[in-house]
């Protein structure tokens, strides 16, 4: 294991390369430019290809082409650019091609603000493109977690043959922390599965990759995908449950917001307040059971903390709480960051107010 003090964007770019990524296409947008900049130098070193696309639209379609060859392909962007990629992401889903997409999100909507925000939860988990498909969404809170999730993202994308999204905010993209980098994966591309265009010249069979299907086949695909999403809920949920055993107040937060909330929870615990946290690591599949299984005899309130206004995860939380306790929300948005004092005060007000 190799330790390095790295910037978030560069850490996930390196983790992608070590996880087997050999193709990247992307278009400049703040705050994720260090990903393409890093990969424009790094990919040629490992025999991979880097293309700066003429737009986000073109870039995601280059990834679609690269993925069709069995190459582990990546694109990255930020909110406005992810909107443009929506078309291509939907095509990846229908053509059943694996790819990884990184969103280093910023203040929205519109051109919004180039400063960090968690404003793309709904886009990520509900409608990453048209047509009603879902993608697995990973939301790391530390750079180490970002490295580990990115490194293994293609294993999920290839297992289920579809897009996987890594959702981070601009803070995590820009922050520098120490990370342990995993070993380079050794991949044997010559044995590529039969879902892709042959990598080996002269393969006997040919293959059609199509984003358009006859009605019955399309419905079969949709039913199959529906089953896959159910399987994710059973097998692939990742969640951190923090000090829940005796918790009277439960914070739900992901990514950078969860780190700020955890600091506040530690302070409140020192003061004797029973506060815990559920931190979804997969935003989709959402950790429903963690919320559903809380002891609502004890839990007095849930506090949804997000770096966006209004809170976007709240609907998913309320569906599991089912009215068994009040749900509160606190956030900052538009590129104004959450901070330790603000979050502590917000939780304190609810805890001490006995709400």
């Amino acid at each position: 294991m190799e330790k390095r003090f790295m910037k978030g964007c560069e850490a996930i770019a390196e983790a992608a390369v070590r996880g087997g990524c050999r193709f990247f296409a992307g278009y400049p947008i703040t705050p994720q430019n260090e990903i393409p900049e890093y990969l424009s130098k790094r990919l040629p070193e490992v025999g991979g290809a880097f293309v700066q696309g003429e737009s986000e639209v073109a870039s995601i379609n280059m990834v679609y082409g690269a993925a069709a060859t069995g190459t582990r392909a990546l694109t990255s962007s930020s909110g406005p650019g992810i909107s443009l990629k929506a078309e291509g992401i939907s095509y990846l889903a229908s053509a059943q091609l694996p790819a990884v997409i990184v969103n280093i999100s910023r203040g929205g909507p519109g051109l919004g603000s180039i400063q960090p925000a968690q404003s793309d939860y709904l886009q990520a988990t509900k409608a990453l493109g048209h047509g009603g498909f879902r993608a697995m969404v990973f939301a790391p809170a530390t750079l180490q977690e970002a490295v580990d999730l990115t490194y293994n993202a293609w294993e999920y994308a290839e297992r289920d043959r579809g897009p996987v999204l890594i959702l981070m905010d601009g803070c995590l993209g820009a922050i520098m922390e120490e990370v342990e980098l995993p070993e380079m994966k050794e991949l044997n591309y010559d044995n590529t599965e039969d879902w892709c265009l042959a990598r080996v010249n002269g393969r006997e069979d040919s293959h059609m990759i199509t984003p358009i299907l006859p009605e019955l086949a399309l419905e079969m695909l949709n039913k199959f995908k529906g089953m896959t999403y159910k399987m994710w809920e059973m097998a692939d949920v990742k969640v951190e449950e923090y000090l829940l055993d005796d918790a009277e107040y439960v914070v739900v937060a992901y990514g950078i917001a969860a780190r700020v909330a955890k600091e506040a929870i530690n302070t409140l615990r020192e003061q004797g307040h029973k506060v815990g946290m559920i931190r979804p690591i997969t935003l989709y599949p959402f950790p429903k059971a963690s919320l559903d299984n809380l002891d609502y005899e004890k839990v007095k309130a849930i506090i949804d903390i997000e770096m966006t206004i209004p809170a976007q995860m709240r609907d998913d939380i309320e569906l599991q709480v089912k009215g068994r306790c009040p749900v509160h929300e606190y956030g900052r948005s538009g590129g104004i960051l959450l901070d330790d004092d603000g979050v502590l005060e917000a939780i304190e007000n609810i805890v001490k107010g006995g709400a």
Partner: protein
Amino acid sequence: MPSYKRPSALLPMSTGYCPGCLHALATRLVADVVDELNQQKNAINVISVGCSALNLYSWSGDEIGAAHGRAPAVATGIKRCLPDRLVFTYQGDGDLAAIGLAEIMSAANRGENFTVIFANNQTYGMTGGQMAPTTLIGQKSTTTPFGRDAATTGYPLKMCELISVLEAPVFVARYALNSPKGVMDAKKGIKKAFELQLAGKGFTFIELLTNCPTNWGMSPLDTLDYMNTNTIPYFVPGVYKDKEGEK
């Protein structure tokens, strides 16, 4: 003796094109050249949206459907990962010259080493005959019921001319498929483009002037005459750029 057998690059089935549609002929020419160069197992056909998408079902080799206008981006991703494969896109004029203008111009400008086959029939065939970026002035369509008016819709886009002024492309040519000579020339052009690609020379662009009897509202034979009097004088056939030939 010329062969009239079905090229093995095509499956033994009907193409799905309307009677008299030159798309079917264009597809066949591409398949013939793939056969002649013995590239059936090496070729990857990047198929676009519109009537050209009907090729998905008749092509026998590797193929992939691309989103509307995005075929050159998809082909870029494929070719960068599989540089030894013969990669080409097959696109219509709405796909290539309107929604996909950024993708075609940028791929051409990067000098991507693949071939674009551009079937220009001056209409959106599959969606029912709306005005295309290549619809001629005065030509009627379902969205220009009184004929295309330059004052509000501008002029038909000349893609060969546009692409030929870029530095990177190596071979850019236009052929009209409404005469036996045009067909023979087109086949030679496609072959030359594929050979240049296989030699790693760079971006090649073949525009094929085709018809649409259904949406033009004419008999197939009348469309051929219409092309002579209207299409060809505006979209003049010829080799617009031949970098290797100039050397």
